[in-house]
């Protein structure tokens, strides 16, 4: 079940990350339905579907490859099922215009999503079983790193950085 997503155009031309409504009123219900329709429309566009499909397929491959301990021959932990679930949820809540990340498993069992464009433009997020996000990136002369908690929405600190990295590609 896809989350309801109201699309909101940002100043840089990118769509906002999903905002989950928790309202109970009739108006909230109507808004939620509108959001669902918008999301459905976006979902049917080839580019959005391809991005998510590619990322989910990469996630499944990563899970298969790292399904047991020592999958790398150097003592790596098996993929953490909770991290896998959190990463899947994260991918489904990526901004609608996001580029597909490359998905792999860290040696500590967390799931890594990477947008590795070149030496000077790389961003990566590790997702733990407790939904902690550890992110870092290099964007030209700028360097970014931090941590955040992923609940239902991608934290603004992360989505803003993603927008900046993607904007450089367009």
């Amino acid at each position: 079940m896809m989350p309801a997503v109201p699309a909101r155009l940002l100043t840089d031309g990118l769509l906002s990350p999903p905002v989950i409504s928790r309202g109970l009123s009739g108006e909230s219900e109507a808004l939620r339905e509108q959001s669902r329709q918008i999301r459905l429309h976006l979902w049917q566009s080839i580019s959005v579907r391809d991005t998510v499909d590619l990322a989910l397929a990469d996630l499944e491959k990563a899970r298969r490859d790292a399904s047991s301990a020592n999958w790398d021959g150097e003592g790596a932990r098996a993929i953490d099922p909770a991290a896998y679930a959190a990463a899947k949820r994260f991918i489904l809540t990526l901004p609608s215009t996001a580029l597909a990340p490359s998905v792999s498993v860290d040696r500590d069992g967390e799931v890594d999503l990477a947008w590795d464009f070149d030496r000077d433009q790389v961003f990566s997020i590790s997702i733990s079983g407790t939904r902690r996000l550890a992110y870092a990136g290099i964007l030209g002369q700028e360097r970014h790193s931090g941590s955040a908690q992923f609940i239902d929405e991608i934290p603004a600190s992360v989505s803003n950085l993603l927008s900046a990295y993607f904007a450089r590609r367009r």
Partner: protein
Amino acid sequence: MRFLRALAIFFRRILRGGDRPPADQATDPPLDGCTLCARFLNSEKKYNKVQGRANYKAFEPSYDDEEKAIVLSMYRLDGMTEPAIVEMGRTVLGPKGGRLHGRAELPAGEIEKLPSDVVAAKKFRARFDKTPVRHVTVSPWDDGKEIRKLHSMDLAKVATLRLLD
């Protein structure tokens, strides 16, 4: 894990005809800034073939039971022929480590320099170990995961990719 690798290398040497150490090991000089060190690559997720570069996944450190700390294992390449480097890479990866795709290499000086250009302080020490043969321990990685990730990116940025044909 490092013990098992050392054991594998020991038995391999016996099978090659005696436990006499290879000439290059017997005369290993101490690490200096020009000594080339490598990470062996067993996954295409660790490099970009089109762009001809290693990425941060090639320099992902991990917890070492003997060191009781997170470290990055590398191997020094000085004085070795290409076939000997490839053989060492296959030995390091071992039977469960997957196919050897190639390596990402850096002079030891580059490792110790980073990330002084960004935080105005030296971070890493590259320590040459006798066991396993040619092993180099790069440490400390005592920061949070997000900073470790950033430093892996720093190392990848200045690394040279060498893929097998």
